[in-house]
């Protein structure tokens, strides 16, 4: 057989051109617009797809090679962790609750991201964009699998980790991340990339995968750090896709600028709201603290974002509309979010607790202007009451923001003693929002957000019971029926950490291992 032999190995740029751009052809049996019907209707004008840049110039063959290496490294650690009972080496069983939030809230997003990138990876007319999206689609599937695999070890020992996908589709607080992705996937392909690749990946994920994973390392969780950093190693490529797509749109046509600016405004705010839960994990759920949410925000968003938006100014792009409010929020959102989870601790599949004395001191130190003034008084009261057997559990369901779907916990800009209420009238009904920005997102596309599956409203409509449940039956307890629909194991998955099975088991296991060593 005659195999053509290349005289000289191709350089990276030629290799990328051959293996990516060289794979494209213009269709002739059918017009290109019919083969790629979705990348024009959003109004983004593209004149020359060849101007799309992939600065890493990664080709498929190299992609498989490096991803294979990452997997081998990761699985070596996961195996070692399981073999050595790594779960006993974490600082404190309270920490595991951060993993429960991660597994039910974040991991299913990876799967959604996989589906969505596979979809847009088909829809762009330009090959450069298609190949980058296809790689990311495979990355996201890998993240979903490795996170599930790594965390399944904890599921053997701790409660609340048995039904992540089921819960993600149903549980009230998980509708926040779920709706973010569903909002993105029901946009066109360019908006989708702005939402996920630019806003989420480029601007915001550093806060999840960098300081939080450092926190996991600090708390002795070798398994989570390793899958976290392994996933994050793909993130540089994802972030690059985000920024390159943005620059590409801005450079192709000046008419694209206002459309892109609108998406940046919307998705920065959507992403910022979504991260409230990460803020809570960072400040309240890591027994050994590394960096406060506020410090992470300053390092990764304020400093880095300033540089980025200074750079984008030459295209006529300004900072997202919600920027100033989001920066003010760095002093508040972790406290507001954790407090509401504590209040609704009977209705969550993870444990909450009153922070310990030293932890409150740490919070006071990290949040000198806000923690003692606005948040400490309720913790002192709750702690007193819990000591006397009167732990606070709010039983009335919360009012939700129509856009971000978070309970209305956020306060007015400039006044942290007042909840912010905003509303719009649309087709004879009222819609309520947590902020000016969530309201504006709704007002721009009301036909979309009136379809929101708001968990509280779904419960009241009777749509959150298992099939066959009869709410008219004598002694029917609607809340218990909802928890059953969620697959919660009531009394094991929910309620305070104090007195939980997790707490007792962890103490017993650690005690046992000490005894074992003495024998």
């Amino acid at each position, binding site marked *: 057989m005659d195999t053509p032999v290349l005289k000289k190995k191709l350089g990276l740029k030629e290799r990328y051109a051959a293996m990516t751009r060289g794979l494209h052809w213009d269709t002739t049996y059918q017009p290109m617009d019919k083969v790629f019907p979705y990348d024009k209707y959003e*109004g983004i004008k593209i004149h020359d797809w060849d101007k799309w840049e992939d600065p890493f110039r990664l080709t498929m063959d190299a992609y498989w090679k490096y991803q294979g290496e990452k997997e081998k490294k990761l699985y070596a650690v996961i195996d070692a962790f399981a073999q050595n009972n790594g779960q006993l080496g974490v600082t404190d069983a309270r920490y595991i609750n951060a993993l429960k939030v991660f597994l039910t809230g974040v991991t299913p997003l990876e799967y959604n991201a996989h589906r969505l990138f596979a979809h847009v990876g088909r829809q762009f007319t330009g090959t450069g964009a298609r190949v980058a999206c296809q790689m990311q689609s495979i990355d996201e599937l890998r993240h979903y699998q490795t996170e599930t695999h790594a965390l399944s070890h904890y599921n053997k020992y701790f409660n609340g980790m048995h039904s992540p996908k089921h819960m993600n589709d149903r549980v009230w607080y998980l509708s926040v991340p779920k709706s973010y992705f569903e909002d993105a996937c029901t946009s066109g392909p360019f908006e989708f990339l702005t939402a996920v690749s630019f806003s989420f990946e480029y601007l915001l994920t550093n806060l999840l995968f960098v300081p939080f994973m450092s926190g996991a390392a600090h708390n002795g969780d070798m398994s989570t750090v390793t899958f976290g950093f392994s996933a994050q190693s793909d993130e540089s490529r994802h972030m690059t896709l985000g920024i390159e797509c943005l620059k590409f749109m801005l450079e192709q046509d000046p008419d694209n600028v206002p459309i892109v600016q609108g998406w940046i405004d919307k998705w920065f705010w959507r992403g910022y709201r979504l991260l409230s839960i990460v803020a809570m994990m960072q400040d309240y759920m890591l027994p050994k603290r590394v960096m406060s949410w506020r410090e992470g925000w300053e390092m990764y968003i304020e400093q880095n974002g300033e540089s980025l938006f200074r750079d984008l100014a030459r295209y006529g792009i300004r900072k997202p509309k919600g920027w100033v409010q989001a920066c003010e929020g760095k002093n508040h959102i972790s406290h507001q979010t954790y407090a509401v989870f504590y209040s609704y601790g009977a209705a969550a599949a993870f444990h909450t607790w009153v922070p310990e004395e030293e932890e409150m001191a740490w919070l006071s130190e990290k949040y000198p202007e806000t923690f003692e003034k606005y948040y400490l008084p309720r913790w002192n*009261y709750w702690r007193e009451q819990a000591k006397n057997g009167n732990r606070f559990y709010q039983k009335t*369901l919360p*009012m939700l923001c129509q856009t971000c779907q978070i309970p*209305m916990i956020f*306060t007015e800009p400039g006044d942290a*003693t007042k909840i912010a209420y905003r509303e719009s009238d649309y087709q004879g*009904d009222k819609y309520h929002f947590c902020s000016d920005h969530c309201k504006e997102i709704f007002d721009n596309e*009301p036909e979309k957000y009136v379809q929101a599956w708001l968990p509280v409203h779904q419960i009241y*409509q009777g749509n959150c019971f298992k099939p066959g449940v009869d709410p008219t039956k004598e002694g029917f307890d609607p809340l218990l029926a909802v928890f059953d629909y969620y697959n919660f194991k009531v009394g094991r998955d929910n309620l305070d950490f104090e007195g939980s099975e997790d707490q007792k088991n962890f103490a017993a296991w650690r005690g046992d291992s000490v005894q074992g060593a003495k024998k």
Partner: protein
Amino acid sequence: MSVVALKPYAFPAKDVRENFPAPLLFIGWEDHLMFGTPVALPLPPDTPFGALGTAVLPGTYGYHPDFAKIDWTKVEWFKSGKPWKPDPAKSLADNGLKHKDVIRFRTPGLSGINGSCN
């Protein structure tokens, strides 16, 4: 503005009145952030407004030491953020409350644990 779409875009709103057994009412207690979020309650339209303080809200807010001290004749009400004077003897509907309205109340002299709005 509206959704940019390839085809006509019209889907039913999820939370219209007919989908609920009773209209929803949203209620918030000002200056009491121990309840970090206002609440949502489905309430029959013929519920007397005065029953909120005596029958409906104790289950929601009774945990707070301020709640027992409330003088309901002195409470200030707001509807969609604007001062509002409901008649406690009349029903929710007769007070003009509709599905998904939001009302708040302030309790003068009672502003949370040690006046901290908590």
